[in-house]
């Protein structure tokens, strides 16, 4: 468990954050630029001292201003991957990788050079100098270097922010691999929903120096604070389900979530795999009767639990689809009035198979279902 409760005042900015995150797991600190994510991560690493507060990792006190505890950064065993990689320019790739490993005590050795090279595909880069690497390669080396320092927590401060989309794809799959193969807990800072969807098991939303909500991504995706950060186009429920059937020929899979099954078009998944689906509110259609004669492949039955004003003249409808799962649908006010949508009403949620964006989470490490979603 990572427990953080800190306060830090800077000229025009105040950080006042409380965070509790399970370990292992990937905690995403999600928020707009300048909301204090990096400041919080720096405090966890020890690079920055809070004015007040405490940081505790797996029962060990790292910072406590009241008890005057401040474990030096170099003795925290917290790996840090910076946005700008920060590879040492006077050392080659191999020496960079080895830098932390050589300084880690033998008792803590859990991951070796061979394994890191294999996990991150670093073998071909070993003989290069750091300035001959692309942005994505640099971040991979920085990741490997941090891993080899045998950390018990890995901090990643927007490691993909300086990369373009193609370069990001050079790093993201490796991050997924690390999450699935190693049991090192990670705190991942990002303002990109895509990264959160693919990596996070737990999300903490930050706004103006405070953590305004935290929990599983499924639960967080339904909160108004989340809508504010992702913007109107990104609004939509994130659901964690399981693949029950695969039709490889048609590129379709059945995913069990909530009280129903969703047919989505995905490729490369196996039955039994955990799957994360984002259903954008703008892609969802509501019906008051079972639909007939439509191309839409999915109709989930649910009950309206909330109606709230959305951008413009739209209304956001939250529909409980059973087993604690819910989806968000955006409809116009006139549609709401015409259909007579109200809380407690039973409706059909229509989802096009192609509009569900899915990401696999390997079995066994699936994000927990939200009880209260």
């Amino acid at each position, binding site marked *: 468990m990572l427990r953080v409760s800190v306060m830090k005042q800077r000229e025009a900015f105040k950080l006042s954050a409380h965070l509790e995150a399970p370990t292992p797991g990937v905690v995403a600190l999600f928020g707009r630029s300048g909301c204090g994510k990096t400041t919080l991560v720096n405090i966890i690493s020890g690079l920055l001292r809070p004015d007040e507060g405490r940081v505790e990792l797996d029962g060990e006190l790292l910072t406590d201003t009241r008890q005057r505890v401040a474990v030096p950064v170099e003795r925290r*065993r917290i790996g*840090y991957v910076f946005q700008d990689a*920060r590879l*040492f320019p*006077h050392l080659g790739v191999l020496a960079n990788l080895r*830098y*932390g490993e050589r300084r*880690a005590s033998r008792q803590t050795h859990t991951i070796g050079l061979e394994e890191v090279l294999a996990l991150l595909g670093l073998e071909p880069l070993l003989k290069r100098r750091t300035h001959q690497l692309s942005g994505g390669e640099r971040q991979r080396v920085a990741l490997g270097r941090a891993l080899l320092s045998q950390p018990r927590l890995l901090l990643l401060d927007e490691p993909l922010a300086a990369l373009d989309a193609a370069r990001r794809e050079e790093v993201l799959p490796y991050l997924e691999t690390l999450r699935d193969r190693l049991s090192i807990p990670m705190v991942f800072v990002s303002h990109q929903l895509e990264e959160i969807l693919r990596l996070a098991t737990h999300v903490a939303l930050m706004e103006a120096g405070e953590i305004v909500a935290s929990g599983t991504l499924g639960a967080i995706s339904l909160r108004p604070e989340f809508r504010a950060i992702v913007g109107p186009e990104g609004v939509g429920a994130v659901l964690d389900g399981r693949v029950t059937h695969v039709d490889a020929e048609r590129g379709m899979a059945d995913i069990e979530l909530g009280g129903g099954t969703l047919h989505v078009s995905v490729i490369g998944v196996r039955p039994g795999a955990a799957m994360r689906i984002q259903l954008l509110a703008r892609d969802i259609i509501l019906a008051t009767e079972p639909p007939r004669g439509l191309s839409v492949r999915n109709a989930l039955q649910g009950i309206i639990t909330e109606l709230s004003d959305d951008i413009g003249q739209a209304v956001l409808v939250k529909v409980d689809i059973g087993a604690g799962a819910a989806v968000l649908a955006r409809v116009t006010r006139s549609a709401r009035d015409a259909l007579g949508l109200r809380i407690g009403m039973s409706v059909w949620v229509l989802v096009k198979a192609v509009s569900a964006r899915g990401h696999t989470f390997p079995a066994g490490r699936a994000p927990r279902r939200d009880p209260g979603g």
Partner: protein
Amino acid sequence: MLFLTPPELDALRLSLEIALRSVAFSLPLAVLVAYLLVRSRFPGTLVLDALVHLPLVLPPVAVGYLLLVCLDSQSALGRWLLAHFGVELPFTTAGATLATAVMTFPLMVRAIRLALESVDRGLEAAARTLGAGPVDRFVSITLPLMLPGILAGLLTAFSAGLGQFGAVITFASNVPGVTRTLPLALYTAIQEPGGESVALRLALLSIALGILGLVLAELLARRLYRLLGR
């Protein structure tokens, strides 16, 4: 070296020796002072800065005179040095070395300071997160990144050290084979009737040495910076 007479060779050898020894002795101190000036926040930095740079603005003769006042055999410090270490500075090669070191110290500090200022603190922070303590960080990250600047400072100070005149002649006098370096030999040649050709040769030799030093400094710096990928 065929065209140099034994006394001229002596002067060349002395110049090289004194310049080399002076940079060797002042290097650690220059790194320390540069570190204090850049990284520490104690209120005396301004005074230290002024003190270090004083030899750049004072007449060299004044520097030599001040050294003489502080360190000659009648002064407390001079007697103490002689009694405890058997070191006598005025009129000796050691004295000439000290005068040279004091004169070239600001040049060296300046170069090292610039190098330290250009070191990315973020890299040191990264080293910290990888388990490197303060001394370890300085040796494994900061110092190597400063290396081009340190070498440039060394070479500049060395080249300048070859030509120190005022402070050396005032403090260590002009003793053939002991403190008569190239510029002192050149000065002596000018004073003597018929010494023009000797003076000219020594002047040319000084120019050659100076150019060699500066070019070397530049080449080394370029090579190192390329290694660092800048």
